[in-house]
């Protein structure tokens, strides 16, 4: 499902007329530095959109403008039909936020924090259930300062989803997670998506974007340089494959034919045979390198 562009579904085509997030010409500068330099972005309802880009490219600034934390210098922004700069409590109740930095509650216990935040919302999820979902059930009674980095991040996620948000922002949510925790987190996010939550995610893990996102956008130097499904980014789906074997390699559009030819040449097993397709990371690194040259 995630490899199919959102436009394939009839429902999403109509949703595109009223997207969850719509941004055009977004600009933001700090003193002498332009952080965001004309970003356009549309995220449909029910979509998982991943923003990729190097540190300092403008991802967090963009996301925090959408979350209503920062004021923009120019551009049109609509999030769930509202300009986040004019956001009220009603709007905040529909939006979940996992910030890049964790807010530390230090001496409070995990369940105290989650329960307290649940009270801010008109229709919250069950705190115990959320604590279980993010995998903190065993730590529910622990003070938050005793949590590991990854566990603190899970608490952040718990607070981001306690209001059952229509739209969830995740700014580098899995930093500090071990591989097992990361996979559990992905399951949690897929579950939210299946429940209809729209998700805007920033990440440095290309694998994460590929696992979760319907579409990815690459930001470099404050500009959106590409938007596509992960499998199609930068012409990845039509890029040549590289076949390698002991003593040789070849770039080709028809790797199967090459393998058959090699099999015939070697009379059976081809030593150290491998067929490489460009990974999302290969494509991404090439884009960033080109983007920085441009």
């Amino acid at each position, binding site marked *: 499902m995630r490899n199919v562009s959102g436009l394939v579904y009839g429902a999403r085509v109509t949703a595109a007329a009223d997207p969850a997030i719509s941004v055009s010409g977004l600009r*933001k500068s*700090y003193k002498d530095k332009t952080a965001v330099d004309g970003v356009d972005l549309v995220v449909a309802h029910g979509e998982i959109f991943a923003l990729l880009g190097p540190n300092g490219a403008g991802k967090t*600034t963009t996301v*925090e403008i959408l*979350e209503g*934390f*920062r*004021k923009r210098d120019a551009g049109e922004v609509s999030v769930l039909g509202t300009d986040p700069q004019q956001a*009220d*409590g*009603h709007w*905040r*109740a529909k*939006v979940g*936020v996992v*910030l890049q*930095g*964790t*807010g*530390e*509650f*230090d*001496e*409070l216990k995990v369940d*105290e924090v989650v329960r*307290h*935040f649940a*009270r*801010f*919302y008109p229709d919250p999820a069950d705190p115990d259930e959320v604590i279980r979902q993010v995998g903190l059930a065993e730590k529910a009674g622990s*003070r938050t300062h005793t949590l590991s980095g990854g566990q603190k991040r899970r608490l952040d996620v718990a*607070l981001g989803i306690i*209001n059952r948000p229509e739209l969830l922002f995740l700014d580098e949510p899995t930093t500090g997670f071990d591989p097992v925790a990361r996979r559990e987190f992905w399951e949690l996010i897929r579950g939210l998506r299946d429940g209809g939550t729209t998700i805007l995610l920033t990440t440095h893990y290309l694998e994460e974007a590929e696992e979760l996102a319907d579409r990815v956008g690459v930001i470099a130097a404050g500009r959106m340089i590409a938007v596509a499904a992960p499998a199609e980014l930068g012409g990845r789906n039509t890029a040549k494959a590289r076949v390698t074997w002991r003593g040789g390699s070849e770039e080709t559009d028809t790797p199967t034919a090459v393998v058959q030819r090699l099999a015939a040449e070697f009379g059976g097993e081809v030593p150290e045979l491998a067929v490489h397709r460009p990974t999302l990371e290969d494509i991404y690194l090439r884009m960033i390198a080109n983007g920085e040259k441009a």
Partner: protein
Amino acid sequence: MIGLVLRQGGIEFKQFVRTRESFVFTLLFPAMILLIFGSIFQGTIAGVPFKQYFAAGMIASGLLSSGFQNLAISIPIERDRGVLKRFRSTPMPKWVYFGGKFLQVFVIGVLATALLFVIGAFYGLKLPSTADKWFTFIWVFVLGLLACTLLGIAFSAAARTGRSGPAVVTPVALILQFISGVYFPFGSLPHWMQQIAALFPLKWMCQGMRSVFLPESFAAQEPAGSFELGKVALVLGLWCVAGLVLSLLTFRWTTKRDG
């Protein structure tokens, strides 16, 4: 919504109590000072033991430290830690946060004052004897604490980082204590110092507390020749309004770095 303020106050207080060192020092500091100065100064002012005079000032100072110092120092730390930013992402209105802080400060103020009463008892501190005086005590206490809370919230914008908080706040509190007649008889301070002190709430809180803990005859020692309770209420009330307006205007959920 009132329920939410109570909950917010509850969680604030829980956090405060569990941060044991700040809890202990906020409560103990005024008590220790009372103990030390009460032991050093044995004299009398206009027939009133200095200890009695000093206790009234220390109770007012305790309110200043529970409200003003406590919040002006702790809020920038919470802001640095991202706790406030996280609150900002919820529908919780500012006034619920302010209300929660006031409840936290109120409970601390009550505990700090109770501790001063206990320490004072060893020195023969005379508690107010009439219902009238208790009534004055209560409104000076509540109004003073509210003004200090709101000014603490407003002043939290002055420290740009959590680390600079104490450096910015402590001198302000100390200077106010010296010029407001906590450590020295207010009547014997230079006139210009009295004038400056009269601009700030602590002087009026001390004066209100003196009217409760000192005999009527002591009123003659006040610059105005009376405890001026009407003026005490007026000035503290005005500071509450000013503190609220300043808080609403200057309060920041996020650090300057956050744009």
